[in-house]
């Protein structure tokens, strides 16, 4: 394979990567906290966290999640699936998510001398009126900021590779 062919193959690979990354970029940037009507929390005990913040004013929903904190357990009858002890509430019943936002979107908390990692899911209201029923999709909220950061970094890296490729391709052409 000569250099021209190698650059063509690389261009195809980069094009595919660009499309995939574009998909994830859109996925991570569409939804904001405020769009969700239902919030689910899962608290998992962790040994220690240097970045955890002290939960001093817990709302009843996050307290309930902490009270049943536990690990994921295998789902009976569904191989490769795991169940976690979630607590679900309407968005206006919990202000924990706003406290997280105030603490720089850090989902590791310390409460009564124990550290927890909180996983948070968002969805729309499954039953907005007596005769209307909605089957809500799940959106992971707790790692949205991290995902945006990762995808943003990947966007920049891919852009840099495209620039290198363009320089290489330009060098291939004979000077007029």
């Amino acid at each position, binding site marked *: 394979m000569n250099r021209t062919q190698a650059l063509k193959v690389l261009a195809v690979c980069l094009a595919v990567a660009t499309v995939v990354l574009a998909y994830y970029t859109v996925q991570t940037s569409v939804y904001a906290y405020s769009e969700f009507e239902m919030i689910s929390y899962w608290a998992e005990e962790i040994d220690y966290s240097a970045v955890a913040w002290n939960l001093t004013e817990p709302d009843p929903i996050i307290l309930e999640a902490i009270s049943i904190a536990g690990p*994921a357990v295998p789902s009976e009858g569904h191989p490769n699936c795991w169940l976690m002890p979630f607590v679900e509430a309407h968005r206006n019943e919990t202000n924990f998510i706003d406290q997280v936002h105030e603490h720089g979107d850090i989902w590791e908390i310390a409460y009564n001398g124990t550290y927890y990692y909180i996983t948070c899911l968002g969805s729309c209201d499954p039953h907005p009126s007596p005769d209307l029923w909605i089957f809500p999709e799940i959106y992971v909220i707790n790692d949205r900021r991290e995902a945006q950061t990762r995808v943003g970094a990947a966007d920049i890296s891919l852009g840099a590779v495209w620039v290198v490729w363009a320089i290489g391709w330009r060098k291939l052409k004979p000077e007029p």
Partner: protein
Amino acid sequence: MKLSRAGKITPLLLLVFFAFLATPLPVSAGSWRVHVLVAYDEEWQSIANRVYAYPPRELASLLLYVVASRFWTFNIEFYPMGYVFWDSNDNPTGPYAMLNEAMEEAGFESGMMLGGYVMHIFVAFTGQDIPLCYGLANSTLGIVLVEHTYPSGVGQATDNVLQHELSHLYDADDESESGLDCVMNYYPQWIGFPYFKWVRTALITENWCAGCSATIMNHADNWGYWDTGGGGGNGRIQFIAWGDERVNES
């Protein structure tokens, strides 16, 4: 007059043949017959053609049949009696707007006549993403909107969504309970390697729990009409021609 041998045997054979027709059949259990008006949009058309290599109407029909067979246990039978094309808005403002749009474009109203048949419920299929949800149902109007659903790690789950929404038309409630194997249960589960994805329990099961089964059974008469099955129940001999089921409607 002297009859030939064939002339003697033919009336005898005809007599035997008609005797079979006039015999009351033992199949007289009956069921709730529900006529369904089915709609599909341009995105559904595209997915049916490109992903499944099916005509859109056939894909809708196939899914409805698969789900309908799960309702047989409640003596409910769904019959797709008409298909309409629905040109969906590509930028829907929300799930309710999509549901209303589908209903208005199809001009559906439960009890409407189409092709000489009463339409009881309306099922709209869409190939585009319904904002924030997989599907929705209005249990008063008898309408259901279902999105083509294919989550990684789960595969095709449109039938689960349809089953879930149709169950709402029979007053089955949503459930959110860890480990409950029910198509009405939307408790989240995590799919491990190599998918790493959250899914609703309802997307990975086609079973109903005992509570939901009882609710659907108790409300099986919400839609449609009782069809004796044409088997001559109560000892009466019935000759039912094609299409004459209409006369049974109350």
